[in-house]
């Protein structure tokens, strides 16, 4: 059976908004959701909160989250927030 992978391009200017939209699409996401972070240079507190919320809901719905194109600086922020382990990363 083919799996549907939902992909979201996260806008660097509105990370939190983009992540909220992604959260709303979790039900239809299938087993995996790819969040394209290649346009995100910096994440703010609201973005981090949205990301934390998204991971909690994805866990409930057993959706695997993949961050694509996240910079090493972004990865470091996720490590500091102890969120990195909740994602897979791809280039």
């Amino acid at each position, binding site marked *: 059976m083919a799996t549907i992978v939902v992909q979201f391009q996260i806008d660097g200017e509105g990370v939190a908004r983009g992540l909220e939209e992604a959260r709303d699409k979790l039900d239809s996401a299938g087993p995996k959701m790819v969040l394209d972070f290649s346009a995100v*240079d*910096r*994440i*703010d*507190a609201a973005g*981090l*909160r949205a990301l934390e919320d998204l991971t909690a809901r994805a866990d409930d719905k057993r959706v695997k989250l993949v961050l694509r194109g996240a910079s090493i*600086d972004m990865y*470091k*922020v996720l490590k*500091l*927030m102890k969120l990195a382990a909740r994602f897979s990363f791809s280039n």
Partner: protein
Amino acid sequence: MVKNPANPTEERMAYLEGLITQAKTAAAVFSQFTQQDVDGMVKAMALAGLEQAQPLARLASEETRIGVLEDKVIKNMVATEFVYNYIKDKPTVGTIREFPERGLVEVAEPIGVIFSLIPITNPTSTVLFKCLMAIKTRNAVIFSPHPNAWRCSSEAVRIMYETAVRHGAPEGVFTCLEAHTLEDNAYLMRHKDVAMIDATGGQGAVRAAYSSGKPALGVGPGNTPVYLEKSADLSMAVVDIIVSKTFDNGTICASEQTVVIDDEIYDSTLKKFAELGTHVCNEKETEILGHALFDRQTGCMQAAAVGQKATDIARVAGLTVKPATKLLIAPIQGVGREHPLSVEKLCPVLSVYRAQSTDEALRMCLDVNHAGGLGHTAVIFSRNDDAIQKFSQVINAGRIIVNAPGSIGALGGVYNDMVPTFSFGCGTAGGNSTTDNVNIYHYLNLKRVARRTPAAMWFRVPNQIYFNFNAVANVRQFPSRSTVIITNPGLEQIGHADIVRRYLPLEASVHVCVIPDAEPELKAILQGVEALNLYKADQIIALGGGSMIDAAKIMKLKYESPEADLEELAAPFLDIRKRVVQYPTGKINPSRLIAISTTSGTGSEVTPFAVLFDKERGRKVTLADYSLTPDVAIIDPQFVMSMPKGLTADTGVDCLTHALEAAVSTYASCYSDCNAMQAIRMVFKYLPAAYQHPDEEEARSMMHNAACIAAMAFANAGVGVNHALAHAFGARFGVAHGRANALMLPHIIRYNASVPTKFRPSPNQRAYVADKKYATIADLLGLDGGTIEEKVKSLAAAVEQLLDQLEMPRSIAALGIAKESFEQALPDLVKVAFDDPSWLSNPRMPLMSELEELFCSAYNGRGTARGTSAGQQAA
């Protein structure tokens, strides 16, 4: 022992967790910010702090009822303007310092979430200061103000926070605990997401911070002694002390507590104090004041007196003073419980003490220092540099303020160039982690990026080397008034010393000193030194084999520097450039050493080594230093034409071992390699002929050169395990050095060419290359083999074949040494070999078990040599 307070209620815990999450998120977000980002925020915050300096001071004054409003305004301004001035141009993001010459870079990393305690005595200035530091270093802070200063401190936090966020700082970067308890503080101090505690305040808070198990900056109380030394500028000193001690009514913990005054100026000093509006207490008043300020039971200062005016304190104590009195001065007779005013008084009350001498003054200052002020601050007023220096050495204080007010001087940046701060580190004596004025660098984790630095290498040989037949004639060019030829009886007898004498300049008086031709003993060395002294030698000619030249090197050392302690100079070392013991540089009898070698093996004429035989302990002592290298080396084959066959073989194998070990040494360089490789080629080509046809001049001459060339290689690259084993074995069983080397050599080649069990740190080498080096040598010799492994095997076989040609024993057993006595000696042999510095440059770090295996292999011996004849190929 600090008690662990109980956990807060669940509701309270949820509140505290919320604060932590907010701060942690802010810290994570902040980690993405650039230097430019934070610098903009810091400037805006400094301006906001300056603008609000007066309102905040007023708020602090009204709420705490401590201190002086006008001084609090100044403190707020110092905390913003002076701190900003200090930090504004300092990099705190990314690379902050570079040391290209050392290959070092420092990179700043924020700390994360800091939990910060704010004292009641400086409730707004400390907040302003810490906020600027935190933003400059990209950290988030949770503030815990003193409960009785919460309104003013939290207002200061609010002003700084809003300004920072307005200029782009992450939300939640500063938070302030609402009305809180010790339980809240303890919970936050222990929290896993709090990275550091910055506790400015009372002893309890500081102890709690350090007891939390978290990294902490705890800075506590002081008891500042002041030495008013007789040479001081009295007018300045008195004004400075009044300025300082009355500043904010004495609430700065660095302010003066006891002024120790030299007897000569005591009366005039008190007179000046009195003239400038202070009240000098009499004995009775001092006693009353002591009782009023301190609790008789606990010895603690009455909290109600902290930061109060002098007149109010006098009134409460029941003293009558003039209405304009700004400072109460209380003469005391000592330090301790019976002198309550000898400790910290956070109010405008100052103790004074009359000292009859400088020693007594320093003793009294030290007593005050030890009565609660260790590590904090001390002050001296003096124009005598010696007195200032003595005071600085004696007193244990992180800040020693010279000719300036203690409190404002310690803050830094106003009266001196110390770092501006509102947190004074008191060092370990004060139970703190630093003696610094706490600053931005304490809010950073500094990462040192250390690049591999290219190892400094060298190639050092004598200034002049003369070779080929009749090279000895060159001795005539060296001017000398008195030359001593050191040689052995045999060489003297066959006329070698006369040959040398023939070429010496006519004006030189020449003396021959004959010593036994064995490994030099101290006794023989000292006899030689006596001769050098007797003849006032300015030139020493060593004529002989390695032992004779070694002896001459040590004689020269002792002659030039009689104080040289040979035992000490023989101390072990890992790196010749970093050795503990340095060879003497001062020479009372400077002289030239010319080495003329009469054997073709040790190469001592060009090396920095000398071996001394310690007869008493039955061991060899190796001296190594480039200052031992002879000034001139003469490689004249006429002196080796009569070398016996056995000696030709032994010394020739020694030469080969030098070259092979230098080639694979961890200190090998392209400079030493070219010598080592060439020497190996020459040995394979000429040694069999020199051995079998002793009269063959070319073979003798080329082997003589080969020995010198190999020595130039190992003088700079070192030798290896082969020599360590041979030294131990040769000394134990009295076997000639070259022969002992021969027994080990094929085994060592195989050993070094295999992957080490243990790699040894060797900054000079980028890779493990011993096997490749051996393969290169095999190629040079034209040996068989396609792979590195095959070439190594061929080389070992070629060495075995050469040793057979030289009729070298194939095993230790073949020397007639019984297995039993060998096995009995084995543990000692291993120990001695492991202690031998020769292996330090070996490509494989030998384990003791491996040394034992190598000895056993040498005992059992090698098989019959097979493979291409390297001698034939090299020829």
